């Protein structure tokens, strides 16, 4: 189980993502944003952080980096791609997921554990959770306010593509959306940080399911 964790200038949860994959029994390596290929990998993670300092818009510049061509091709072939926090922002900016992440409604950065509900277990990333299972996962972001046009939200709901919802919405996201998947279900973007809750010493293990699902998908 070989995971590529993409590293942009300013990414800072990249090492955390690598650590989480290893803790869960997989192998992970960092891939620098200027590389023109991913190498032989089973899955891709776009980690959290402040790529390019969040300048212009969060994820805007990273989404236009050379490595993204390879990430898009990988997703097109059905490869699993997990975008966490800044990674979710990058996926939206790159057009791999619909909508956009705007500034939190209360205008402050927020770091706290949030209660999530698993809305759909049909994607690989949520397949290891029980339907409507409640989780506690930390968020840490200033621009996690999910927005999409009404028609897009309808589609997401209709197609069961909302993966996670906030039970205590920390940022004003429309429809309490915390994470969504692509049409084919192989790309997931989520604002909360599952990689921060895979070891009990850090206060919880509700994030393990995301990685378990990812690994199972690859084995298949």
């Amino acid at each position: 189980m070989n995971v590529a964790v993409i590293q942009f200038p300013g990414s800072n949860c990249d090492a955390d993502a690598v650590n989480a994959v290893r803790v869960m029994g997989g192998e992970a390596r960092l891939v620098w944003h200027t590389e023109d290929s991913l190498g032989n990998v089973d899955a891709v993670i776009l980690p959290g952080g402040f790529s390019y300092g969040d300048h212009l818009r969060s994820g805007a510049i990273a989404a236009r980096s050379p490595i993204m061509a390879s990430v898009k091709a990988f997703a097109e072939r059905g490869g699993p791609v997990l975008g966490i926090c800044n990674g979710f922002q990058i996926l939206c900016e790159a057009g791999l997921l619909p909508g956009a992440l705007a500034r939190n409604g209360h205008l402050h950065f927020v770091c706290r554990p949030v209660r999530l509900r698993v809305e759909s277990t049909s994607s690989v990333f949520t397949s290891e959770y029980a339907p409507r299972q409640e989780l506690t996962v930390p968020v840490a972001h200033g621009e996690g306010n999910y927005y999409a046009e009404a028609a897009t939200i309808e589609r997401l709901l209709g197609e069961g593509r909302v993966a996670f919802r906030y039970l205590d919405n920390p940022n004003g996201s429309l429809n309490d959306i915390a994470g969504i998947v692509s049409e084919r279900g192989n790309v997931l973007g989520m604002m909360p940080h599952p990689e921060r809750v895979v070891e009990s010493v850090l206060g919880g293990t509700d994030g393990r399911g995301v990685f378990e699902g990812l690994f199972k998908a690859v084995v298949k």
Partner: protein
Amino acid sequence: MTQIASLRDRAATFGLTVEEFDLLVSRIGREPNALEAAIVGAMWSEHCGYKNSRPLFGVFPTTGPQVLQGPGENAGVVDIGDGLGVAFKMESHNHPSAVEPVQGAATGVGGILRDIFAMGARPFAVLDSLRFGDPASARTRFLVNGVVEGISHYGNAIGVPTVGGEVTFHPSYQENPLVNVMALGLLKHEDLAKGTMGAVGNQIVYVGSKTGRDGLGGAVFASADLSDASQADRPAVQVGDPFMEKLLLEATLEAIERGLVAGVQDMGAAGLVSSTCEMAYRAGLGVDMDLDKVPTRETGMVPMELCLSESQERMVLVPVPGLERELIDLLAKWELDVVVIGEVAAHDKYRLFWRGEVVCDLPVSVLNEAPKYTREGVESDEIKAKRERDLSGVPMPEDFSSVLLSLLAHPTIASKRSIFERYDHQVMTNTVLVPGAADAAVLRVKGTAKGVAATSDCNPRFVYLDPYVGAAAAVAEAARNLACVGATPLAITDNLNFGNPHRPDVYYQLQQATKGIGDACRALNTPVTGGNVSLYNQYVEEGRTVAIHPTPTIGMVGVLPNVDERAATAFAKGAHTLYVLGH
């Protein structure tokens, strides 16, 4: 003769007293030019030269088996076993935060982090100790919001968790907020880097942001000394960019790990000069530097501006001879600008060139050996009376419940959740005890069973009432906070925030507080590995000078041999018996 007389007459514009100017003349055997006077003024300032405080540091214990690096380098380092060390230090950014709270606090975080990674340590935690005035005033609310925004913005963006701290409100800080930031970093013993220059012939390399006129708006030089840029073009603030700092951090740590550098130093206040001349002093060598080579962000900058600029996110690296190409390629990967600006020289001078001419030629020792002042301290009668006040006549409250509630509602004691939830306290996935969970922050050390604990403490009212006891109590409080989570205290960093040391009552506070810290550190076996001093924190109100409460903030680090053997403060479920230990 006219030129000499006029420089001496305006010694104050260079930050020197007339006596100091004369001292300089006697030490270099001639009169300085304007640039040299300004450089000495910067190096002999309280901030760089510690004129009024260094003589008092003799009372501090600074050694011990756990001390890998004591005072004198960019940060102190303690051994935590397993071949690992923790670099740590606390710094203040008080005056800039009063001018522009967001950038003042942000650049305070940036500065202390650079000191940590310049040692070869990867920063893994930040604590912030904040003091403000009356919480009801609009100005205080403006400052609190700005400072928290600044620390949040910088710390979160660079990806180092802010895991603890303090917030205190007291009227004496009304015009002089205190922003003390502590940072910790992890290093392998063999990666401990020093801010030295290595050997003669080594190149001096400038890395990071271009140099602008940041911070020069606060300088009071005669217009003749500076360029034609107007006052409006000289910002009084320094603006920080955590994205640039993140690139510098990664590049510097990789360079140190790969053994590519002989010396590393960050550029702080009067950045270019203070960094290079401290490095030269540590090496016992000299420097030849070409100011024309310094990368600039603004046009028309002159030597004085280049030397004294406070532009952020700049480092000085000295490559290992023969490995310059590898270092430059590494820095290029991180898209960092690199320029060779000088060379380590066999002479013992600090020499600067501009357009082919020598514009500064001073002995390195003179720059680094500021005069030391020992003053007379006299306790204030007013404070003595307060301390000795007979409390037996004070009536007891009828309703303790309402007293408790009003104490809990006081902003100094009330929950700080709305502040620390604006800080990412879990990035790097090491935080085991988050803010609010316990009396100290605890972080795990990946790859070992250990934990590191940190706390930042001071009760300024105690120090005001009795500086010796109050300062010792701050050290003791820090040690108790660490013990409560299961950590053994190892060492401290101290951040001394006081008023004007020329005033005997303030100097008394400094004398007694440093003694108290020294004695407490000896008793608790927590040597002082470094620290910071911020003086002249006072303001004038209706003809009266109001100094802040003396505030020696203590940052203490401890180790847990097994991070799983820790305690938090929450009561677990079930009935409990409570014990009180001590008197």
